[in-house]
């Protein structure tokens, strides 16, 4: 099976989700999907070249991906606790209405 087709399909689904969804958690799910598609390429090309370096890179990428998720979720929780907002459209409206002052930031 052509794994590249699968990788591109998952990447496309993730990008569509990132563009169309406005919920912060849903956007994170889409980002997870995009990174999984990108990481898959490391393993696939590594196996094509018969090299374990692809696996090593995928392990590094997966660990960094978990860190990204943790930081993004911490930001989402902070935003929710501070502004009671989970929708990015509301967040944009909030920042347009009330620009943060130097003291607040």
């Amino acid at each position, binding site marked *: *099976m*052509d*794994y590249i*087709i*699968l990788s591109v*399909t*998952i990447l496309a*689904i*993730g990008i*569509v*989700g990132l563009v*169309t*969804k406005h*919920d*912060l*958690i*849903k956007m*994170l*799910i*889409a980002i*997870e*999907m995009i990174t*999984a598609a990108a*990481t*898959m390429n*490391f*393993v*696939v090309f*590594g*196996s*094509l070249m*018969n*090299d*374990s*370096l*692809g*696996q*090593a890179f*995928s*392990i*590094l990428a*997966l*660990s*960094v*991906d*978990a*860190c*990204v*998720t*943790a*930081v993004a*979720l*911490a*930001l989402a*929780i*902070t935003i*929710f606790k*501070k502004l*009671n907002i*989970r929708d990015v459209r509301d967040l944009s409206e909030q920042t347009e209405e009330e620009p943060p002052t130097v003291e607040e930031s």
Partner: protein
Amino acid sequence: MWLETILAIGMVISAVFAIYLKETVSSVLSLSTMMILLSLLYFNMNAPFAAIFQLALGAGTSAIFLLAGDSLTKRSNEKTSKKTLLMGLIVSAFLSVPLLIGTVVPQSFTQTAEFSLSIALWDLRAIDVLAQGLVVLTAALGVVLLLKEERRRK
């Protein structure tokens, strides 16, 4: 051949449902299913270390993070309608067609995976591993600072 195709189609279906479903818990479960199928695909490609990491981090840790994030924030009361489910099925069926048509090339490592991975990771990419440790520590520090700031304000 058929196993890879089934796994790939399952991945596409669960990815589409992870985006389409309105309930966040169902979306996270769909994403976890996709990650589990991806790790099975890695096992099938004879890449066990990548598969185990995918299973532990992609399916396990990320799902726990996302579920914790969902439970700590306000949940929406929206429920997935049958029309949305049907739409998701049609989209996933449409996206699965290229996978069925795609040529089947079984790929697997022929060399001893354990030996060559340890060389690749510790000899060739030792600095990267150290830098990655720094990245993980920085991320942990960032999360602690973000959540601590919130506690101080309270």
